[in-house]
């Protein structure tokens, strides 16, 4: 080649390309400088010498599909240029991130597998904005997540490090709820179909339980005529209990007493109806100041984990009433609210900005 010929070849026109292959088998060519922005690809090129031809295309991780790859390459193409100002980069990022949540997740995943940290940070922050302030139910909906925590796990009592009487009462409430759940577990063995249907959405079950439906279910368990005698006695017992319940304004004493008396699973059903009474009245708003205004004059000294049987019934009744009172004051979506409230106790400190006086003045 003469010198003349050499001069014609302009260096800017020579760009090296890298071959990338996604999990679905499709192969594409990408400018090397753009692809090198991804640490994982960079590693493959430099350490392993891959990507220089179609046959030696770099296999990308499975989490990177062609759609995500093109997004990632757009990102790299912009940011690998050195001359840009911070303002420009920020502006690009803000526009880049505008996509639906599903894509954001896929993009996070893909960027993570390529070890492209700046992009992972960017998408993570965007997803954090999506998540914050939402209830668990909303989040499950957005991300199509299974509700796979058991009721028991959701009710995990929180550590009571500050000896707060409210937390103690709540832990008792939890303990009782757990116990009731266990009783329900027995029922499940009887007949899976209808128990699942009946107890699936405990939190949203309405307070009012149809007398008849419970009786229907009882007869279903007992299989018609064979045990009608047993059925009748348990029915009447239940009716008496119901009357008592109404008088006592839905105290849960019966369910606990009956626990002691009957060992079979039948009465667990009645306990189930008692549980509904524990629900807070819909429409009652609870704000933390309400909770804090409760006076708890009696400091009851016993372990949180204790089940109520060993305690003097009069005291038990008092405690139960306090517990229910407390439960009623809370919002309907209570396991979650409970977690929140217990985790976070009082909102901040007990300061009222306008200097108004607190109730403790009388001490």
């Amino acid at each position, binding site marked *: 080649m003469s010198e003349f010929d050499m001069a014609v070849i302009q260096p800017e026109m020579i760009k090296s390309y890298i071959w990338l292959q996604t999990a679905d088998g499709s192969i594409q060519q990408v400018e090397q400088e753009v692809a090198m922005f991804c640490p994982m690809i960079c590693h493959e090129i430099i350490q392993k010498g891959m990507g220089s031809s179609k046959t030696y295309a770099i296999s990308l991780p499975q989490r990177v599909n062609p759609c995500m790859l093109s997004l990632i390459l757009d990102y790299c193409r912009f940011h690998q240029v050195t001359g840009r100002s911070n303002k420009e980069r920020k502006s690009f990022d803000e526009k880049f991130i505008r996509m639906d949540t599903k894509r954001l997740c896929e993009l996070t995943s893909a960027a993570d597998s390529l070890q492209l940290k700046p992009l992972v940070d960017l998408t993570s922050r965007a997803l954090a904005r999506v998540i914050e302030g939402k209830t668990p139910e909303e989040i499950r909906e957005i991300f199509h997540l299974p509700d796979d925590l058991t009721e028991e796990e959701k009710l995990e009592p929180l550590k009571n490090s500050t000896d707060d009487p409210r937390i103690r009462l709540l832990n008792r409430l939890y303990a009782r709820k757990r116990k009731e759940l266990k009783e329900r577990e027995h029922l499940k063995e009887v007949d899976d179909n209808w128990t699942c249907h009946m107890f699936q959405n405990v939190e949203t079950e309405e307070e009012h339980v149809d007398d008849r439906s419970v009786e229907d279910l009882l007869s279903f368990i007992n299989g018609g005529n064979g045990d009608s005698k047993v059925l009748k006695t348990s029915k009447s017992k239940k009716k008496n209990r119901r009357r008592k319940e109404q008088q006592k304004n839905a105290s849960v004493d019966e369910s606990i007493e009956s626990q002691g008396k009957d060992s079979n699973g039948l009465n667990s059903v009645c306990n189930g109806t008692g549980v509904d009474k524990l629900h807070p009245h819909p429409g009652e708003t609870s704000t933390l100041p309400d909770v804090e205004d409760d006076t708890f004059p009696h400091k009851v000294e016993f372990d949180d984990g204790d089940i109520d049987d060993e305690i003097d019934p009069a005291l038990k009744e008092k405690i139960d009433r306090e517990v229910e009172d407390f439960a009623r004051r809370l919002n309907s979506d209570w396991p979650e609210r409970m977690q929140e409230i217990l985790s976070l106790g009082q909102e901040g*400190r007990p*300061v009222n900005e306008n200097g108004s006086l607190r109730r403790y003045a009388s001490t």
Partner: protein
Amino acid sequence: MDITRTLPEECIAKIISGTSPRDACRLSLVSRAFEAAATSNFVWERFLPPDYQEIISSSSSSSASLNMLTKKNLYFHLCDNSILIGNSNNTSFQIDKLSGKKCLMLAARELSIIWGAGDTPYYWNWISSTQSPVLPKSRFSEVAHLRSVCWLEIKGRIETKILSPKTKYGAYFIYSMENGCYGFQTPVKVSIRLENEVEGGDAINAYLNPRIWSGTHDQQQSNEELLQINQQDGRLPIRREDMWMEIEIGEFFNGSQVDNHGAVEMCLKEVQVLNGKSGLVVHGIELRPKEES
């Protein structure tokens, strides 16, 4: 599409660490995968102050057992319990639950109290917190007790770099009043000032002992009067859960750590009327994040 199948737990943890402590608690109820991510040390370490490790090790109180806690438990422990730091353990450290920012309290010994140096016990004397059964429990070893003084002046100073950056802080005077105290019908003046700023430091009236506390019979009248005072004239105290009284001295915004090497000065004084005063017990001055109103 279930994202917990597309995203590894570390990514979910990363996303959650960009929310808030409250969100993280809520998120642990979403699903099993979220629970694992939301309770992970990675997330809660991000919520703790960046220099928490340093602070805990410099404290004399049981740092070994604190280090054994999971980060989430450590977070909540520090929210509910203060640990003593600083020379002579005269500063206490805690975390604000909602934001994870630092709360610091200066003990009375850490403040400068005019006539309170200790060599003039006729004016102020120092009580060990265990000695006085009447007073609320103190987290510090001593509290300052006012026996009799006309010139009341208490000052506190703290370097802004030990507080959390980019946070609005409120400063609160923590105290108690003995039975038989007098001289506090007249308000004291409270002010706060950032050392390296020219402006600020305007004094506001603060009523340490409004009439309602003395248990007079005309309670109703006192209430109305109090409301009037509140709207026009000055600040009123409130009783805290730990049974001490607190009254706001002022607020300030702690900017980023780079450009703010200064300190905050807080002042409480009554040096105009100069009436005789007695019975004030000083616990300290607390600084904690204040929510944007």
